């Protein structure tokens, strides 16, 4: 069992993929669309499946049987408990970082 702490910080790609799955299972193409819609980042299939592959190896996501009516065989992925915990930790890290930055007077463009 790899030490979860070793996986911090996550790469932006992995983070976005994980975040996209937080609401429920999605297949790869849907992940790609969702990330684009929510954050404007245009990921390609290589990045999406690379990230999914890595997250799968970590046990943070798992494949689910897809019973959608889609003609095509698609594979959907679901976030696991470890995944949620990891995402939680990552967000916590970000919040701490943001707090640190704010304390130095950076507000990220919001009104000072």
């Amino acid at each position, binding site marked *: 069992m790899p030490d979860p702490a*070793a*996986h*911090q*910080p*996550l*790469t*932006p*790609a*992995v983070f976005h993929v994980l975040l996209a799955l937080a609401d429920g299972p999605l297949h*790869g*193409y849907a992940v*790609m669309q969702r990330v684009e819609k929510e954050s404007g980042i*245009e*990921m*390609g*299939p*290589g*990045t*999406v*499946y*690379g990230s*999914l*592959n*890595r997250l799968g190896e970590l046990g943070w996501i798992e494949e689910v049987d897809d019973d959608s009516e889609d003609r*095509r065989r*698609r*594979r959907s992925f679901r976030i696991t408990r470890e995944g949620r915990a990891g995402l939680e930790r990552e967000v916590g890290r970000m919040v701490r970082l943001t707090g640190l930055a704010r304390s130095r007077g950076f507000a990220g463009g919001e009104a000072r």
Partner: protein
Amino acid sequence: MNGVWLFLYRSALRLYPRRFREAYADLMRDDARDLLDEAGGDRRTRARSVRRLFLDLFRSLPREWLRALSPGAARRADTRPAVASGLRSDAAAAARSLSRHPRFALGVVALLGVGIAACTIVASVVSAYTLRPLPYPEPDRLVAVSPAVPVETGDVEDLFELAASWDLDVFTLLDADAPELVYGRWISPDYAELFGVRVESGRLFTGEEYAPGGPAVALISRGLWLRRYGGDPEVIGQRLSAFTSDRPDDAETFTIVGVVSEESWALRGYADFLTPLRADRTVYVGRLREGVPPGPAARALEDRAGPRPAWIPEDAEVELVSLQEQYTASLRPVLGVGLATVALVLLIACGNTAALLLVRAAGREREFTVRRALGAARGRIGRQLLLEGGFLSGVAALLGLGLAVLGLGAFRGALEAQLGIAVPGGVESLTVDGRALAVTLVIAAATGIVFGLVPLAGLLRTSEPGLREEARGSTIGGRSGRIQSAIVAGGVALSLTLMVPAALAVGSARNVANLELGFEPTDIYRSGMLLRRASYPEVEDRAAFFERVAERVRAVPGVTSVGMGPVPMDDGAPRVVEPEPGPDARGLRVETRVYVHDAGWLETISTPLLAGRGFLPGDTPAAEGVALVSRELGARLWPGDDPVGKRLRVTDMPGAGGDPSDRPWLRVVGVVPGIRGGVSDSTRFAIHRPLGQAAGVWTNVLVRGQPGLGSPLEEIREAVGELDPTVATAETGWLTTAIDDARRPARFLATLLAGFALVALALAVLGLYAVLSFAAARRTREVAIRMAIGARGGQVARAFLYRGLALVAAGLLVGVVGAVLLGRGVETQLHGVELGVPVFALCAAALVLVGAAAAWIPARRASRHDPMRILRAE
């Protein structure tokens, strides 16, 4: 268009590590398709999708490989921000690294660029001729009947939707200051529809006009309309007097019913005058009915055909050949050779690019090791390598594309002229072909990227940075050494493959340039003239007219001699002659040319009479038929015997049946040197017949003037016009120009092949030199130790030389096979050269010499080092 991108993307998916590919490649392909489909027809969205897909490949490929090869490193890479943040700085690093070695970068770009350009141009030409359909309606169903056995359109209506027949003819147009000769066609009713002939004003012929006894009507070309009528819009309905020499009808008055539009590609400048064909409707080209297969249709047509004319052999099987195939048949060998040649050049360019990248990468191991030791991620180094390779390929691709566009734009007219066949759809359509470009670019890009990545693999094998170890340098060998050796040997092999045909082509071009013609073409002006058969029905009439022309032109000041007859270097249709059987009758039949000329012709072209007599005024139809034979033909028909006094006769066209026994025997009265009947004529078999006994309706006046005499065309026209104002002169010009034209194709092929062979040789030498000099540099330390323990400089240098020569020898062995294959292909296009041991020996010797030089220089440098200094430096 999406199909092409998807194809490229799917091909690129193969580049992922196997496990990843097996797990995700299908999904990625489907997603890529969705992404492209989503864009629909919107170009900008599609461009964005394409960029997204390929940028993603660029980013995720090295990461997946990194993970596959070194899981530990990958885990660390995961924890580093690596999606996009470092890309710009890596690109900058790659650019810096390349700009530090501008000669290397320029070399690679030039190499690949030239290869890409050459390949793209030739592939575009091939595609324009063979892949693009002929610009006719329903081009896929158009077939030519070959050979054209006589069958009437009415008999094949179940096979063909449309069946066209036509007769090529030459028309003499009157009604102007001077009669003008134009090429024209008699066309059958389906012709216009089948070939998509359209008018820009007026109308096509009506069914009634095709009926026997219909009115004399004509369509004229846009060119003729502009030339003769100054583009007069009132031309429709005007009358035009014209006659053809061989139709018995006297001068006809045609009513112009339309002007043919220039889009009617079937006519493209070869036909200025069209008129309805009312008889002899033998089908030449047909449009097959939907679902009718050509094979069975050909059998059916054969069964219904009438008796074959003498010139179609009885046993020849009738085929329905795709019109496109028939159109490009004569071009295929040339295009094949061209394609093979540029493919080889691209291969050498890619190979040498690979060699240069490998050599350079190996030389940078120390740089990478240092950077690793300083904490650089392997991913970063890999990405930089990839960016360098991609950058080089990208610039080379741009250069190649630019060169191809410029080259095709500048030379497409010349290319078309050299190939001698019009580009389907017009020369403007000879542009850079997207498919050709895509294939070439993928090859070039793969070279840059794959070989750019090779050092990365080496880097990953060493688990931890071993600065001390690496810094010592290593001896050449191992995998990268073997790859380099293979590339050098391959380069030599490809060079030989190209050099041998090139040497043959150059030899052939020299042969053609120095052809011993059997006559002297300088300072001879020629002009053809065509008589109306109705006005000159008998041979005597025609001969008398031609002699009167000769007399008048002879009187022009500055003219030294005048002859009436053919242009000597014309590939006329060959005839078959047989000698009168002697006691030992052998039934010998020989294919020869027939020259019909007057007494002055031989003198004018400076061909001497070797034996017997020339033609005399008494050689008339009433007298015994006489002939001169070429020395070569005489020796063939009567070996070891004097031909003068023997008899022979012309039987017919080759392969024909029929009974030749009613043809008259001709007495041989003289012998002349063989005249070359064309670039490819190696036999020089010819008989000469007097104009007085065999004059046709067409002949030339050949005028030899004092050097510096201007064109005597005006005088010729005047002489002809005074004698008969309906006789047109045509095909006028200096004989030397005509002969240069005949020689041009040989020169073109030679220049092309020689140019590519030189490029190939230069590339091979460059590769050899780069690898060997690199090897020498890498082995400095080894050399120093050897010399420190007593080896002499000469010994060390020899060791390097042998290594270089071993590579050359290995390459030569392989190259022989390629050279034989390509050589066979070009041999048919060449004259007076053969693919034999001498040419191989010559090319191999040249490669060995150049290879030895490329090996010797770095070897000398290595052996001159002061061993102590090197060892201390280490």
